[in-house]
């Protein structure tokens, strides 16, 4: 194969694992790999959920990005100015320009608190927090310590968000945390969502809604937050209805990385990359691909998705580099542990076509699906080690493939697609 250059924007889950898998497959003479990220801190994002409750320490969920990349991968620490898709160039804010044969966009999604009126008001990080970034999760840990009575509102403003189950997990863990500290009777918890139920997919939504009820957590649906009054402590919807709170934990709107908006033709209005759902090739140009949260495909923005996409993407990029037809197809496979408190968790597994079903994963003898269990909780807590030592380096997991397994699942009587 003639020498070619691959540029990967972003050294998070998707960018890192793809770079490492490609490095294993091609020699440096065949493929030069350049990876760019704006800082050298790789955050294990699933760990954020545990920080507010003192169950994870900030130091333990961050490692150097550069150390996660195999030898023979060039790492550039800089912000990205823009991508010129016509001339195959990436302009960095440090003045450098990278020329690519193939580009992978793996810059994920960022929080946009400024897009919700009032959210940056005086009560931000005082009575209104998010746990979706490390400073927020850390500040919230301190606030929860001293919160002993009142109304806690948990509000996601609109989708897409990273890990759509995390706000529910936060509610479950908060219930456990306050119970443990003997103050649960003095605290009201309300989950506020723009959806018409607890979750997007029917079977999982019913299970999760039932759990909310069991735990005495109120549910407010179809609430479209347009404004947050951080001083008056009110969530205000576009239709004028209000939810008052003493403490609010919100999930700000999400968008793609800033440079996408400076790169004509690359992304959509929200800064995500439109691409083929199955091959992950961008609609902008054949030599541009996207992975993980940055890709605009109709499945969850979640680490498991980036993981499963990566396996397929590497084969497709391989074919593309050799001028062959891309045959691998991503099916939208996502797999999420949902912490429900008291050292238990649910597991859900789904794809573009199949909603989360009960049964077992990955086969008839496996972890219980859509059902609380301790083993799922252990799976979630032990996953971090596998993340650093298995997933990022690009090792295959025995028994868990990119495509959604069906053998352990029970089909529901009521049919209907999610």
């Amino acid at each position, binding site marked *: 194969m003639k020498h070619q250059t691959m540029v990967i924007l972003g050294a998070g889950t998707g960018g890192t694992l793809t770079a490492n898998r490609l490095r294993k497959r091609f020699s440096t003479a065949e493929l030069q790999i350049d990876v760019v990220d704006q800082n050298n801190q790789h955050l294990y994002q699933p760990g954020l959920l545990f920080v507010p409750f003192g169950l994870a320490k900030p130091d333990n969920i961050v490692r150097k990005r550069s150390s996660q990349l195999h030898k023979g991968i060039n790492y550039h620490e800089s912000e990205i100015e823009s991508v010129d898709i016509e001339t195959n160039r990436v302009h960095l804010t440090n003045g450098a320009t990278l020329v690519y044969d193939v580009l992978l966009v793996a810059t994920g999604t960022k929080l946009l608190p400024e897009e919700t009126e009032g959210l940056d008001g005086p009560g931000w990080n005082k009575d209104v927090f998010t746990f979706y970034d490390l400073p927020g999760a850390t500040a919230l840990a301190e606030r929860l310590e001293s919160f002993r009575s009142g109304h806690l509102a948990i509000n996601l403003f*609109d*989708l897409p968000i990273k890990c759509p189950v995390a706000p529910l997990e936060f509610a479950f863990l908060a219930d456990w945390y306050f119970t443990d500290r003997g103050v649960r009777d003095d605290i009201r918890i309300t989950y506020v969502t723009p959806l018409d139920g607890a979750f997007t997919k029917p079977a999982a939504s019913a299970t999760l809604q039932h759990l909310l009820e069991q735990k005495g957590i109120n549910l407010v649906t179809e609430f479209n937050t347009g404004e947050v009054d951080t001083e008056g402590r009110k969530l205000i919807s576009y239709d004028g209805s209000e939810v008052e709170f003493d403490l609010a934990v919100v999930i700000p709107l999400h968008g793609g990385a800033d440079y996408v908006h400076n790169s004509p033709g690359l992304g959509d*209005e929200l800064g995500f990359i439109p691409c083929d759902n199955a091959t992950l090739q961008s609609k902008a140009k054949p030599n541009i691909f996207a992975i993980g949260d940055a890709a605009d495909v109709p499945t969850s923005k979640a680490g498991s998705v980036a993981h499963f996409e990566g396996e397929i993407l590497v084969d497709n990029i391989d074919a593309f580099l050799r001028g062959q037809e891309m045959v691998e197809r991503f099916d939208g496979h996502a797999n999420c542990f949902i912490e429900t408190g008291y050292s238990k968790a649910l597991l859900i597994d789904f794809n573009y076509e199949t909603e989360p079903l009960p049964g077992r994963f990955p086969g008839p003898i496996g972890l219980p699906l859509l059902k609380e269990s301790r083993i799922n909780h252990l799976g979630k807590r032990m996953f971090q080690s596998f993340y650093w030592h298995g997933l990022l380096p690009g090792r295959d997991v025995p028994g868990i493939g990119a495509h959604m397994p069906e053998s352990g699942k029970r089909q529901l009587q009521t049919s209907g697609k999610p």
Partner: protein
Amino acid sequence: MTTTELAGKSVEVNEEGFLVDPDEWTEEMASELAELHGVATPLTDGHWVVIKYMRKEYFENGTGATVRKLGKASGVNTKELFQLFPKGPAKLSAMIAGIPKPKGCI
């Protein structure tokens, strides 16, 4: 799926009331659909900007826009969208525009 009469024509709608075939839709059906689904009529210019944008999106991308995309790209901001189509701008405007329910995010 049921058949219903709109603007003097017989069309198929699904259980939620969305037209099954967007090609059967005519502009005359819009205000009848709006009345059926609780959107104030007569439809204003603002409504029509959104309805036309939704149809364009559907025929170009295979799905209508979400509220956030509408707010950024249709020319009508999010606050106004909720005034025009209370409760659910994306769902209601798709309904009135005769296209399927926009594929939301998961």
